[in-house]
C-alpha cells in the first residue's frame, strides 16, 4: 500500500490540505443531530477498509509533516514529553505495541526484525533504520516512549493503573486541544478531567473509568471526541495560547470556510502487558468547513449540532465567540430535511 505523503505546514503559512481521499475517510463524529457527552466506547478491532478505524494505528497522508511539526514543538518546549521514573517499562510496552502493529498493518512502510532482544526497526517514510536492544535504554537515542512517539501520529498518554484509578504518569503531548501535560502529569482520571463542564455531574467519568480499568490485553477500545480550531494548528497548547489565541479573531465570512476547522480526536485504549499500564493515544484529524460541506449530510448535521450545543460546551470548546459566524456559514447547507442516522456519508 503506498501513501502519497503531503509536504505541508501546521503553523505559519498553514499549507495543510486534505486530499479527496482524506475528506472521504474523515471521522465525522456526530451520528445524530445533537451532541451531549456519552461514554461512547466501542471495541477497537478494525473497521471498514480504508477507514481510519481499520488499522491499530492509522497512518495517513499527513504522517511525515505531522512528525516534522512534532519535532519543532519539542525543540521549542521539551516539557511536552515527560515520563515519571516508574513508567520506563510502560514506555517499552508502547514501543513494542506500535512497532509490532505498524510493521504488520503497513508492511510496505515499516519493518520490524527481532532476534531475541536484538531488534531492528525500519521506518521508510522517515528514512529511519535503527538497530537496538529491547529493554536497554542506552541503545536508543531517546527513552522508549519518546523514541517511538516521535514516529507516530497523535498524542500519547500512558496511565498507571493503581488503587482503582488511572494516573497520567507519562505522555507525549504536542497536538492537544488545550491542556498541559506538564501541569496534569501525576493527576488521576477525575483530576485531569476536572475542567470539563457538566460531565462530572452526569456520572460520565465514573462509568468511563470503570470500563477502562477492565480493558485487557488483546481487546482495545476506542471513542471519538471533538472540538473546533481556527487554522490547521496542531499545537493548540495552553503553553502557547498567548500566541495562538488571537487567531480566533481573524475569521471573516469570506475566509471562514478555509480557516475554521472541525477537529476530531480518535481516542484509543490499549492494555500494556509488562507494566499493566493503559496507553491512551489521542489521534487528531482536521477538516475545514469548506471541505466538510462537500458531504451534504455532514453539512446539514454539523449546522444543527453547533446551533443547539449548550453554551457551557461551546465555551469550554473555545468557539463561543465565533459561533454566530459559523452558523451563518453552515445555515445555507441546512435545508431542514431529515438526516440519516450514523456518521457515514449517504
Amino acid at each position, binding site marked *: 500500500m503506498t501513501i502519497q505523503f503531503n509536504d505541508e505546514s501546521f503553523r505559519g503559512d498553514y499549507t495543510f490540505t486534505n486530499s479527496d481521499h482524506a475528506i472521504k475517510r474523515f471521522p465525522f463524529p456526530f451520528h445524530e443531530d445533537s451532541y451531549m457527552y456519552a461514554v461512547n466506547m466501542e471495541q477497537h478491532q478494525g473497521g471498514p477498509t480504508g477507514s481510519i478505524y481499520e488499522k491499530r494505528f492509522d497512518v495517513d497522508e499527513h504522517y511525515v509533516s505531522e512528525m516534522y511539526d512534532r519535532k519543532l514543538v519539542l525543540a521549542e518546549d521539551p516539557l511536552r514529553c515527560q515520563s515519571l521514573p*516508574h513508567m520506563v517499562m510502560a514506555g517499552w510496552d508502547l514501543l513494542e505495541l506500535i512497532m509490532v502493529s505498524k510493521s504488520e498493518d503497513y508492511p510496505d512502510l515499516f519493518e520490524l526484525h527481532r532476534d531475541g532482544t536484538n531488534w531492528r526497526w525500519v521506518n521508510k517514510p522517515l528514512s529511519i533504520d535503527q538497530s537496538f536492544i529491547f529493554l536497554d535504554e542506552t541503545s536508543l537515542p531517546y527513552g522508549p516512549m519518546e523514541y517511538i512517539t516521535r514516529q507516530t501520529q497523535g498524542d500519547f498518554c500512558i496511565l498507571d493503573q*493503581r*488503587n482503582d484509578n488511572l494516573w497520567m504518569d507519562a505522555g507525549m503531548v504536542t497536538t492537544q486541544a488545550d491542556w498541559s501535560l506538564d501541569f496534569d502529569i501525576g493527576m488521576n482520571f477525575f483530576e485531569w478531567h476536572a475542567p470539563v463542564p457538566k460531565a462530572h455531574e452526569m456520572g460520565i467519568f465514573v462509568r468511563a473509568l470503570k470500563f477502562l480499568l477492565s480493558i*485487557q*490485553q*488483546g*481487546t482495545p477500545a476506542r471513542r471519538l471526541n471533538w472540538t473546533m480550531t481556527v487554522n490547521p494548528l496542531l499545537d493548540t497548547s495552553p503553553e502557547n495560547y498567548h500566541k495562538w489565541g488571537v487567531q480566533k479573531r481573524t475569521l471573516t465570512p469570506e475566509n471562514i470556510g478555509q480557516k475554521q476547522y472541525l477537529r476530531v480526536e480518535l481516542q484509543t485504549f490499549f492494555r500494556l*502487558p509488562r507494566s*499493566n499500564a493503559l496507553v491512551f493515544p489521542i489521534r487528531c484529524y482536521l477538516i475545514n468547513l469548506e471541505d466538510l460541506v462537500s458531504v451534504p449530510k455532514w453539512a446539514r448535521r454539523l449546522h444543527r449540532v453547533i446551533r443547539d450545543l449548550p453554551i457551557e460546551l461551546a465555551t469550554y470548546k473555545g468557539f463561543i465567540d465565533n459561533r454566530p459566524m459559523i452558523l451563518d456559514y453552515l445555515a445555507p447547507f441546512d435545508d431542514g430535511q431529515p438526516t440519516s442516522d450514523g456518521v457515514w456519508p449517504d
Partner: protein
Amino acid sequence: MIGSTKINVIVSQIKVLNDLVTCFEFKTTNGDLLPTFSGGAHTIVEMQDGVVLRLNPYSIMSDPFDQTRYTISVRRDDQGRGGSLFMHTKVKVGDEMVISYPVNLFSLDLRARKHLFIAGGIGITPFLAQIKQLERSNGYWELHYSTRRPALGTFVEELLEKYPHKVSPYYDEADQRIELTSLLSGQPLGTHIYICGPKGMIDWVRQEATDFGWPDEAIHFEEFLAPIPGKPFQAKLEISDKVINVGELQSLLEAVELAGVKAPYLCRGGACGQCETSVIEYDGKFIHRDHWLTDDEKASGLKIMPCVSRFEGKKLVLDR
C-alpha cells in the same frame, strides 16, 4: 468484559511438588509465543470435566519475560468443588486445554522503594513471578513465607538457594511465626507490603500494619477465594427468560454460563466486581462470600456476585 482472549495450549509438563501441590506447564499448541504479562497476573484455566465446564483462576508463577511457557501450581482441595481434583487426577501431559490471556488484579506498585512480600501456603505463587520481574530491574524486595512444614514448603529450597538473603521461611508445625511487629518497624518510607494467603493471615497483617501506622495505599493483598460448595438452588434469568439450577459443586456464574448466557467476569474469585448482577426479586437469603460489595449492598438484597456467592430460599430473579 467477558473474560479475556483465549489461548489454545497443551500441557507440556506436570511436576508433583509435594503431597498437596502439583505444578503444570503450558505451551501453545501452534508454537506461537505466549503473551507477556506483569507479575501477579493470573490465567483462567478451562476444565471440561464431563458435562461440567469449570473456569478457575491460577496465578502465573513463571518468568513474565519467558514467552515460551506459563507455569501454575494447583493445591489439591478435597473439600472443594472438584477443580483442583480434576487437575490433579484427570489432566495428563499432552492434553489440550484452553487458558485465558493474563489478567492482573494484584500488580506491584512500581513507585515502591521496597516490596515486602508475605506469603502463606499456596499464596506464594504470584510472588514467584513478581520476584523474577523485580530481579530483572534490580528491585528491592524481601519475602517472608509461612507454610505448615518443610515438606509442604513449595519452592522454599529453590528460593533459599537463589536468594539466600531475601527469603525467610517459617514453619507452623515448628512453632515458627512471622514476627510481624518487628518486621513492620524499621522499614524505609515508601515500602509497600503485599499479602497472599489464607484470609486469617491477610486480616492479621492488614490490621497490624494499619495499627502501626502504615498507609492503606501501601498495603496490597490477594485472597484466593474459591467458590465454596453449598445447597443447590434455582434462579430465574429475567432478560434471557431462562430458569437455571445451580448444583452443589457449581457456582451461580457457572450455571449461568452453562445455560448459554454470557456474564462478564475477570477474576472469578469475588474481588474484581465485573460479574456484579442486579437482583430483581427474591424470597430467601443470600450467602455473600465476595470482597466486592459493601456491607450495605450485601444487606440490601439488590446485588449478588455470582462467581462466589449463593442463595437459599423460595425465589431468586436476576437481571441477566
